[in-house]
């Protein structure tokens, strides 16, 4: 699914989080929103997911206006920075949550849900942890379970907020490749937020550099490295 962000602006009270920004994301792309904290990258991601609504501007999914569409209707797989795994449910129930929460008429059979959860556990390469609780998992495992839970609803796009933010360097590297593989396998349009330029450069097809609520530059990692469009981008990449 392709995403078009048309002159989106967001204010929280008097504070401006996003000045009008415009961005087109082609179907199946892996895009990084890169910037320091306060640059508006997370706000933009949450607007795509329907967790915030823009003050002005439009969001188009496959050319259809989705600006006012509810979170539930968007079918955006969202991975939170804190993962937000349900502590009182097993890994299996966490991943099955989105399927179990459907109205009875649209809910898959129990066996079908179990089959899909098993498949997702294999996809994240943790086939044996279904019966465990989130508190029994390592940080990297939790992140992958959160990803599997988001994928279970057969989302139209994948949105990740600082997906590797809370992990140590070694696990980060492994999971980067894991996300790349899952993206290539599912072909989902994927947008992730990061403040780590290495992560953005290594993983994304397209990097969107943001600062103070505006987009500074959009380009392939190579272009951004070789031809920074503004002094801000040059300094940020050099840091």
């Amino acid at each position, binding site marked *: 699914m392709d995403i078009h962000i048309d002159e989106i602006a967001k204010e929280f009270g008097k504070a401006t989080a996003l000045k009008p920004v415009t961005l087109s994301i082609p179907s199946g792309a892996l895009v990084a929103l890169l910037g320091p904290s306060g640059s508006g990258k997370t706000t933009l991601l949450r607007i795509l997911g329907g*967790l915030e609504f823009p003050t002005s501007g439009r969001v188009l999914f496959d050319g259809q206006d989705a600006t006012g569409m509810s979170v539930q209707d968007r079918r955006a*797989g969202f991975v939170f920075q804190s993962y937000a795994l349900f*502590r*009182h449910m097993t890994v299996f129930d966490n991943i099955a949550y989105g399927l179990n*929460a459907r109205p009875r008429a649209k809910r898959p059979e129990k066996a079908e849900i179990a089959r899909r959860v098993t498949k997702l556990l294999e996809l994240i390469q943790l086939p044996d942890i279904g019966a465990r609780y989130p*508190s029994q998992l390592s940080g990297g495992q939790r992140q992958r379970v959160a990803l599997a839970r988001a994928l279970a609803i057969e989302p139209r796009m994948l949105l990740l907020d600082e997906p590797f933010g809370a992990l140590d360097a070694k696990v980060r590297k492994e999971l980067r490749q894991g996300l790349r593989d899952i993206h290539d396998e599912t072909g989902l349009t994927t947008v992730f937020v990061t403040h780590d330029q290495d992560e953005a450069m290594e993983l994304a097809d397209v990097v969107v550099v943001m600062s103070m609520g505006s987009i500074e530059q959009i380009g392939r990692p190579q272009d951004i490295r070789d031809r920074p469009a503004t002094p801000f981008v040059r300094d940020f990449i050099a840091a």
Partner: protein
Amino acid sequence: MTDIAAPIRAKRVLPGFTLSLGTVLLYMTVIVLLPVLALILKGAEIGPARFWDIITSARTLAALRLTITAALIATAINAVYGLLMAWVLTRYEFPGRRILDALIDVPFALPTAVAGLSLTALFSGNGWFGQLLEPLGISVTYTIWGVALAMSFTSIPFVVRTVQPVLEDLDPAYEQAARTLGASEFTIFRRVVFPQILPAYLAGCTIALARSLGEFGAVVFIAGNLPFKTEIAALLAFIRLEEYDYQGAAAIALVLLFFALILLFVSNRLQARAMRFKER
């Protein structure tokens, strides 16, 4: 001479452990433990046969039945209303929210006798509420409903004040995550929010029930205190004491104590069950 013989004692980071723990234990013993112990010893003097006679006498049984039934009604009301109240106070911003929040503590601060008097005045036949209810054939004062009403008034803060902080601390990301997964607001409450507040909720309801079983001041004004009809167990113990029937008073008090201990035990078990996901 070197001082190698000096005993090596691990130094605690925070000083004052012995003094503070000692004070706490002494206080607990004098204020809580000794009275309970004295009551049990007093009860033990009675002897099992006499004890059984006292607590199975028609008047005691009627008082216990009324107390327990009314306390259960009061707790059922508080369980619904207290949860709703905690939800409203934490989830919505509205003018007067802080005032409402402060009002929750009024039953704690108000002398229970004052509460009993004002409830009686409101619900008696010529009171504001009473004159509306009486023509409908509903009488509150001098009935079990009055007893339950007074009990629920004094114990409502326990439910609200145990659930409220847990709701406030709940990371909004849980609900947002459930929303992105397509869950309706009701499903989110039932399967994501409620299980997380359940331990605190159970604790609050149990304390409210325990408090209702022992409520005295507010109830005696509105109940009418007719033996066999609207006489609560705590009042019967008081009456026995006034009659210099120490054994009778102690026996009834022991039964109340027994219920309180059972409730605490059940509450702990329920909480441990509801929190089992945390231990693993």
